[in-house]
Structure formats: C-alpha cells, structure tokens
C-alpha cells in the first residue's frame, strides 16, 4: 500500500478522454516519475491530485484519506505540496517573505488572525525561513523582490517554499522545463540532496530523460491517458512499448 493510491481515475474534457482508468501507487519515500508524450494526461493527473480538477470517476487516496472533494488548501494541509511548471511564487514579496508564508501556513493552519504582532517578532518562523533559505543557498538574496529573480532562482525559491512545509508528498511538474543545462544539473543536485536528507515522497513529471533517470526509483509511462507500463528505470529504458509511445516508429 503506497502513500498515494490512484484507482480507476477517469477524466473527460468534452469529447476528449484525458485520463482513462489510471491506476497508480506511489510508495512512501520513493521518487516516482510519470513520463509520456505531450497530451498524455500527465498534468491532468497532477491537477486531480491537488484539487485543481475533480476526476469524473475513481478514487485518489493519500495517506489513507480521500483527497477528492477537498479544496486545494485542505489538500495541501494534508501534506501535499506542488511545484508548478512555471514557478508560482509571490512575485511582489521578498524572497524571505515568500518562504515565511508557507512556514506560517504549516504552523497556524489555513487561517489565523494574527494582525497585531509584528512579523519580525515571530522568531521561530524567521529562524525556520532562514535555515530553509540557507539549505537552497539563497540566503544572500533574502531581501530581493521575488519577481526579479532569474528563472532558475524562482524555481529554487518555489522548492524552498514547498519544502518549508515539510510535506509528505512533493509533486513536481516539469521542474526543469525551459532551463539551461547548468540550471537543470543544479536542480537535479538539489532534488537529490532533498531526497537524501528528508523523509519525503516525490512524484515528478518530466520530459527530460536525463532528469528522470537521475532521480526516479520507479517510472510510470502514460500514453493517451492510460498507464502503459510501470517499472524501474533500467527496465523502462529498453522497453519497446515506451520507445513506440515516445518516438513513434522511428529508430533511435
């Protein structure tokens, strides 16, 4: 029994069957990659996990509880954090404030009326945010307005924000999309460190096979909304069905 259990999930958009009978089981403290060609339904699946979309049928269980019908913030409070394809950060706020907000969310829940005490007086949050920024090597950028960061730094910041909630499950939607090779390698290193240091389950969607094979413990290949195969990276590499789905009939 995995920490995340997706059973028979279907999702239609009008005439398009985006997800057809998806079954997925992600074991605790592993990194599970979901790969597949464009339009395979990877992002739709992820959106169903965080409450952005509601599947037509099927069940999604996380840590023994259903996530279906819950609001995004409730699902997050259960322990699921998500890194988006284009980094979603608080662009008008400073880097430090960006990291403090999830720390507050973790400590105080979905809403707390703390309108009089000063942010600076919340020493436990300040310390947490500082050590989190130190972990992703961004401490010297703490007072920069987040929207002026480089793409790579925005990504790192977003990961820091997700990690400062100490989630049980971290969902990553193409974390290296549009990145230069050096930035991609940095991101891989960062994710490897995170995996090594924390008890965390990761579920990653990625096009870049280099990233996938460096990180994943198991891989699910999705094609046309249905899981094609699920196996270890070594087996997936040479799998004929995968080659077909990805590359058509062409030879590599």
């Amino acid at each position: 029994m995995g920490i995340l259990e997706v059973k028979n999930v279907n999702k239609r958009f009008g005439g398009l069957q985006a997800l057809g009978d998806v079954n997925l089981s992600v074991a605790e403290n592993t990194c599970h990659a979901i790969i597949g060609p464009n339009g395979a339904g990877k992002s739709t699946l992820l959106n169903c996990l965080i409450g952005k979309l509601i599947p037509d049928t099927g069940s999604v269980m996380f840590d023994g509880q259903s996530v279906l019908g819950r609001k995004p913030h409730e699902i997050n409070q259960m322990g699921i954090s998500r890194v988006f394809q284009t980094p979603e950060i608080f662009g008008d706020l400073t880097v430090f404030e960006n990291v403090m907000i999830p720390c507050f969310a973790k400590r105080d829940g979905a809403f707390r009326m703390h309108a009089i005490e000063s942010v600076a007086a919340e020493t436990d949050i300040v310390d947490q945010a500082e050590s989190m920024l130190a972990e992703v090597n961004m401490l010297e950028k703490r007072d920069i307005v987040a929207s002026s960061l480089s793409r790579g730094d925005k990504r790192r910041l977003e990961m820091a924000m997700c990690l400062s909630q100490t989630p049980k499950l971290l969902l990553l939607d193409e974390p290296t999309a549009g990145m230069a090779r050096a930035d991609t390698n940095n991101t891989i290193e960062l994710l490897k460190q995170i995996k090594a240091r924390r008890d965390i389950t990761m579920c990653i969607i990625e096009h870049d096979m280099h990233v996938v094979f460096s990180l994943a413990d198991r891989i699910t290949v999705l094609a046309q909304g249905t899981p094609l195969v699920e196996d270890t990276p070594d087996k997936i590499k040479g799998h004929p069905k995968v080659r077909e789905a990805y590359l058509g009939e062409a030879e590599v």
Partner: protein
Amino acid sequence: MTDQTQHTAAGPATTRARRKSQGVLGLRGRDITLMGIVLFLTLAAPFILNPFPATSGMAQFNAGYPDLMQRFVIFGIFAIGFNILFGLTGYLSFGHAAFLGVGSYSAVWMFKLLGYNIVPGLVLSVIVAGLFSLVIGYISLRRSGIYFSILTLAFAQMSFALAYSVLTPITNGETGLQVYTSDPQYLQSADAPSIPHLFGLEMRATETLRLGGWSFDLNFGYYVCAVVMVLAFYLAIRIFRSPFGMMLRAVKSNQQRMNYTGLNSRPYTLAAFVISGMYAGLAGGLMASMDPLAGAERMQWTASGEVVLMTILGGAGTLIGPVLGAGLIKYFENIFSKINDGVLHQWFAFMPDGIEDLLVGIVHPFVGKGWHLTLGLLFMLVVIFLPGGLVEGGQRIASVFRRDRKAGGAEARAAAKRNVE
C-alpha cells in the same frame, strides 16, 4: 522593507539581538519616523494649514478652519481603512461609502436614543458597519476583479436607495436623519450640552489664537478626530507589519500559490474587508459627531469613488499615501472651489483689461465650480507618471536630492584633489 538586517559571516547573532528589540510601541525603524510625522502633522495642523495672515489676500488658501480640518482627518481615517483592503489585497471595492453612511446613521441614532455624548455613537457605528460589511463582504468576495467591484457597487447603490426611500422610518429619507427635541435621549443629563460632546466638552468648542496678523483655530472636535486618526494610523501600521498583513499582500500577489500553500484566502480577504468597513463606519460616526446629521447621499457611489481616488492619488499600498490623498482632495474640494471669477479678476487686476479678461477666461474652467476638472487632470497625471501616487513622487524627489548630494560630494572631492595637485 525598512530595517533590513544584513547577513554577514558574523550575522545571525547580531540580527537576532536586533530582532528582539521591539522599538517603540511595537514599531521599528522607519515606521517610528512615519508615526512621528503623522502625529506632528495632525497636532500642528491648525498652524500648518493657516500659513497666511488672516487679512492678506492669500488668506483664502488657508485651510485651517475647524470644519475642513475635521474633514481632512475623517476622510483620512476612511482612506486608511480602504487602503487596508485595496492597497494590501488588491480587491477594489466601489461600495465603501455604504459603510460610512451606516456609521453616520448609527451614531445619530445613538444621539437620538441615548444623548449627545459621542462615545456610544462611535462604538455603535463601528459595530454596525462591521456587521454590515461582514454580510456584503461575504457575498461580494465570492468573486474577484471587476465582478467584485461591481457587486460592491451594486450593494452600495442598493443601500443608498433603501436609505433614501424604503427605510424612511430608520433613515428619515431625503430629509436626512437628525436629532429632534422630542427624541427620548435617555442618558442625556440636564446640564449636558445639547450638541455633540465628549463627557461635557463640546465638539464645536474653539479657541482662537491670534498672533499678529495670523489667527489659528484650535477646535476640540478636530482634536478628537485627530486622536482617533492617529490611533487608526497606528493600528494600520501594526496590521501592515503583521503576518496577517503579509498574507493580504500574498493574496494580491498570487492567490493560486496561496491556496496551494495551504492557506485559505477567503477568510483573509473577508477579515480585511470587515476591518476596512469598520474604519469607514468609524469615519461615518465621527462625521455625525461633528455635525449630528446623516443623509443618504453619504452612501452614493460618488462618495465611494472619492475614497478610491484618495487612495490611488496618495499611493495605494503605502501607509501615509491615503492620508495625503484624502487631504489633497478635500483641500481641492474646499479651497479651489471657492476661487470664483471675482477672485480671479482681483488676481489679474494688474494686467491691461483685455489680457486680464483673457487670463480669467483661461483659468476660469479650472477653478470654482470647475475644480473637478483640475482634480481630474491631476489624477490623470499622477496615474500616468506616478503610478505609486504622491508617495512615489516624494520618493523620487528624495532620491534626486540624495544623488545630488552624492554628486556634489564627488565634485568637492575632485576639486580638493585638484587643489592638492
């Protein structure tokens, strides 16, 4: 954004020590200066606003008379509260005048039922406006952006229509609500003044100070409003610097990320809406305390629009901006509108007749009844060239001066170097 701690190798220990120091009344760094400025400006307003001798031709630009000064600070309170919603969360309400009106009606009802002491009136105006904004906010905040603005506008216009006609027994319709001698006033003692007062001190009590040609009006009602505004401003600073204030800015910045960070943005925005509604109610209550009348026109959409203008003109999202915006608009409304053709002819009297008439003709549309035109132009200029409002203008001027000083210093050094050589 003030008091930024530097992180050097020896950093954490020193920053922690600084973090613990609470500053003055929970304020630190530039906020203390800001608070000091506001305190000074409000206390010294009767003097600052009357810079011209009473007998001089410039006396008409004096704004230091009680009625106008009261309006400055009352609308300052209104705008400070509005800014907590609009400046922090970005939710643009076009219906805040409804809460102002509700506050005024509540206060007048307290005068009618209990007596002329303003304390019960102010308390009730805040409570009723708070409840009213809770209902309107709960419904309006289901939508965001333009739909939210339209919903609030619709509610405010409904309130206006209700106050104007349907709810006449409560609001006295188009006559406006006022206190009659037949009203019960259960707590009004025989020796208490029969105009609004604070424990016997009348709101309209004014001490006129004459110094040479100058005269300054020290009005008790103004100082009551001023003290309330200083407190309201202090509370606003605390809210801005609190985790709650940070969450409100997060709402404005990226609501999606906020929800996926486990935070429910709805109660945060609703709380901001109610707080700003209570500020508006307080302003309405004070307005009624200065002049025990409440009319439906206080709820009209133009009044809602005015507070939007004040906030944007001064600088939305800044602390002091709304106060400056409120002051500027009220100054225009009361001073510019008084400049009529007679005054203009006086000004240009030294010119030959033809030119005098021409100049008066040119200036005429911008003053007197045309003051809205000047205000409109000013608003356009500010929005186009200073999107951060007057506060941004001030910052730019300050930075120019700073650069000049640096450049001046460099030149001096260069000159000194030349001399040595």
